[in-house]
């Protein structure tokens, strides 16, 4: 392995990390602005122009708050909970292809931290680990409300993972690969998966909401029943990490949705741009296209949050087990029949 390769990958990883952090930071700002817009308010506008420095001010506030420890015998687990949540939120970005390639310093730089053969399974693996942060933190808080929130988050995650995996199988039957890079390449032009697998997309989207613990599925932090849910006992930056991890996860989910179903970095006429304007221009436009898609999804997630009220817990479980899982199995059968019929 030559050193240029290592430097190239390190730069890609650092840039991806920085972008994830910045996007998560400004998602908190965007959330408040979107909420304000939907409720006919103004939103944060004191810190900086249009309130653009608001995330920094929030971060500073969280850092300077008092570190409160509840009376718990599991102090270590209490600290490790938000750490796990944050780590897993940042780990997922490693396999997402942010663009095809750039031609810099006479090298082809692949805009992806690593392209493993089983990228999609890697994402599932990391996501299923992510709930341990909530579970461990909620349990170690030594508080009934936290525990209830954590148990809800865990059982919700376990239930919706099944439907998510099954909806993915239908997509995989079509693409024939687990590598996100190849899935992106297959969707060149307007050949996006969402047009072939609309049902799979819908199920994946709903499950993504549930895995993110976002409204209408945020039963884990349902404040009318559970005070604050799993992070009731958390304060200062530990609390900040939980909230920040949620926004980082939101960014990553939006990225995965765009890559899997909305063509990733592809945009109509990309091949024409490569032929006429050079590889770099075309691919920078590709990165911009991907980020527009991601921002669209983030806006959609926020829009849903401020439009649809929270489900009841039994409704949530019914939706997961009785509707989404049978629906995704039917989707697999239909996909199988279609593949047999058209190939």
């Amino acid at each position, binding site marked *: 392995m030559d050193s240029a390769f290592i430097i190239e990958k390190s730069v890609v990883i650092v840039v991806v990390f920085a972008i994830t952090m910045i996007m998560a930071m400004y998602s908190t700002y965007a959330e408040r602005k979107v909420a304000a817009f939907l409720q006919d308010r103004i939103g944060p506008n004191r810190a900086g122009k249009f309130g653009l420095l608001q995330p920094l001010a929030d971060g500073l506030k969280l850092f300077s708050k008092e570190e409160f420890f509840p009376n718990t015998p599991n102090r270590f687990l209490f600290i490790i909970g938000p750490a796990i949540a944050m780590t897993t939120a940042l780990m997922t970005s490693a396999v997402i292809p942010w663009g095809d390639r750039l031609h810099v310093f006479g090298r082809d730089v692949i805009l992806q931290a690593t392209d493993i*053969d*089983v990228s999609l399974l890697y994402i599932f693996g990391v996501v299923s680990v992510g*709930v341990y942060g909530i*579970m461990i933190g909620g349990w170690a808080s030594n508080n009934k409300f936290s*525990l209830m929130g954590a*148990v809800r988050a*865990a059982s919700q995650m*376990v239930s919706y993972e099944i439907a998510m995996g099954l909806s993915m199988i239908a997509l995989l039957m079509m693409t024939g690969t*687990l590598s996100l890079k190849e899935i992106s390449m297959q969707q060149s032009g307007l050949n996006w998966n969402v047009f072939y697998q609309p049902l799979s997309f819908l199920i994946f989207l709903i499950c993504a909401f549930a895995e993110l613990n976002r409204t209408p599925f945020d039963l884990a932090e349902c404040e009318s029943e559970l005070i604050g849910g799993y992070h009731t006992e958390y304060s200062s930056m530990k609390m900040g990490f939980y909230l920040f991890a949620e926004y980082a996860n939101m960014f990553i989910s939006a990225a995965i949705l765009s890559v899997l179903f909305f063509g990733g970095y592809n945009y109509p006429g990309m091949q024409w741009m490569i032929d006429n304007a050079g590889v770099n221009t075309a691919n920078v436009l590709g990165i911009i296209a991907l980020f527009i898609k991601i921002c669209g999804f983030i806006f959609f997630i926020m829009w849903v949050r401020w439009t649809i009220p929270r489900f009841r817990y039994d409704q949530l479980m019914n939706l997961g087990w009785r509707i989404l899982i049978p629906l995704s199995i039917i989707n697999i059968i239909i996909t199988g029949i279609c593949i047999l019929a058209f190939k």
Partner: protein
Amino acid sequence: MSTIVIIFYFLAAFTLATAFLTIYSRNPIHSAIYLVLCFFSIAGHYLLFNAQFLALVHIIVYSGAIMVLMLFTIMLMNLNKEDEVHKPRITRIGALVVFLIMSVVFITIFINSKTITGGYDTSGEDFQSIKVLGKVLLNEYLVPFEFISILLLTAMIGTVLLSKKEKKNE
């Protein structure tokens, strides 16, 4: 020592340590957390063989499974009481004997087993890739593969039956 060997020893020590801690920690939730760590380090061993698919499936399956285990621990056990159930000495001796017999069986199996990877070594194919794995599973190992699915189905039906029965008794 090469890096791989150092990583192997580190992982092996970690696996054994967490496995022992799983058994010895008094708190059932701590046990479950150590079990997760143990399974993760086993996934690390798979990665040393370059078996990415196996490692990731291992993490997905077991992290989900242990999450369910933790939920059951919280819901079914009284965590406030920290009293150890006192087991009679004969149970402990019995457990030890069973453990010894099992280890003899396992060691004999591992010594006498003949791996049949020879054919794939020479074929020059990347036998870690999921395409090759799928072909092998559904061609040469089709019958055992289907038997496993029947086994899993039986377990699922059994669970449903058990939970139904409890409802009737109420």
